């Protein structure tokens, strides 16, 4: 359970903005293991989303190295990289990006079919994923027939379908109410308790507190990496 799923080694990202160079992420070392639920927090422009894009192999680092499930991303061809992403990583975004013309089941089946999984098998895996998020009875509904919370559950099922073990989420609860947002956290928690990995960018401390690790970014640097506290240790602010 301790294998490293995602690793940044001196990975940085610099953008050119006119004549100026903007450091979105300073050289960063980070290891995220199987079973880890990691939240990334920080003010806007602190590098949260950049870090998520690097971890997901969606963006190349300016310097350093990104490893996903043991594969050095830079050593892969674009085709291999796309295949690695499809097989290893699911993305959950605030904007759900479910395809409106497809049912919940078809939405979840789609990434498997794109990966060449046979229809029957894909359908079975998709139904299992929907079952894990308690959405199997809505399998035949179209996205606009579902509530916001239900759509987000389908999005998580799609992200976690098949063999994918890593979920990368950017503000995954978006405009959902508190109780529905907590339900989404419970799903991510369960994914990690089952040996999966989740990295979630959020500005919401209450949601971040569901994670085992909370990483704070400031000006493109990690300034704190808070791991779940030993319950026997009293901490400042803990009056009781």
């Amino acid at each position, binding site marked *: 359970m301790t294998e490293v799923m995602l690793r940044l080694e001196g990975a940085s990202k610099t953008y050119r903005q006119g004549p100026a160079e903007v450091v979105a992420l300073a050289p960063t*070392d980070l290891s995220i293991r199987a079973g880890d639920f990691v939240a990334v927090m920080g003010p806007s422009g602190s590098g949260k989303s950049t870090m998520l894009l690097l971890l997901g192999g969606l963006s190349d680092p300016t310097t350093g190295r990104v490893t996903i499930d043991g594969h050095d991303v830079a050593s892969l061809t674009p085709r291999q990289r796309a295949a690695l992403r499809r097989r290893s990583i699911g993305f959950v975004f605030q904007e759900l990006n479910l395809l409106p013309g497809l049912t919940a089941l078809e939405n979840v089946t789609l990434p498997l079919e794109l990966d060449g999984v046979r229809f029957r098998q894909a359908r079975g895996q998709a139904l299992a994923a929907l079952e894990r998020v308690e959405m199997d009875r809505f399998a035949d509904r179209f996205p606009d027939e579902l509530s916001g919370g239900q759509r987000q559950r389908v999005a998580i099922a799609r992200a976690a379908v098949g063999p994918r073990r890593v979920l990368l989420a950017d503000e995954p609860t978006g405009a959902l109410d508190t109780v529905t947002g907590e339900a989404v956290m419970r799903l991510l928690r369960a994914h990690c308790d089952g040996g999966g990995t989740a990295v979630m960018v959020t500005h919401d*401390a209450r949601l*971040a507190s569901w*994670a085992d690790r909370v990483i704070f970014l400031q*000006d493109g640097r990690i300034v*704190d990496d*808070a791991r*779940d506290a030993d319950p026997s240790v009293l901490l400042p*602010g803990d009056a009781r």
Partner: protein
Amino acid sequence: MSVRNGLLALLAEEPRHCYALKAGFEERTGQAWRVNIGQVYSTLERLERDGLVEPTGSGEGAARSYQLTGSGLRQLQEWFAQPVMLDPPPRDELAIKLLLAVGAPQVDVLQLIQRQRAALIRVLQRYTHQKELLDEETELPSVLLHDSLILNAEAQLRWLDLCEARLRRRGLLARPATGTEPAA
């Protein structure tokens, strides 16, 4: 003050003896507030002296059971009817520390904010995990108490965010944070 009113509230439900009052108080306040039996005894004595409770029978010591009197009930109703006033606010050590840090020489305010933030997040993680283990059906007071603790910690975190943003805008956080690399 609250132990006194807490005992009145419990006795309004049914007559109880000392140990039942102690257990009831702790259970109903989500185990957040331990009271010792001596405190319950002495509070009961004062309530009896003030005519707010009376013994129900002739039992002695711990076996003695108490019930609410008419004036006890009126005082309890009055307590429930009054909103809890946070004005003036209770002293807030974090707020005072941060306010004094702003403009103090040799204080890295950004680091102070960040350390506080990390400490609060750890506390919040603990509350969240504890709350997940509770059963809303059978442990509702503890669930509600954890909601309160979580939301208060969240409020402090949001205040820290706001402080950072304001200080940054006014150029009062000029010193860059010294980044520490995470443990691999």
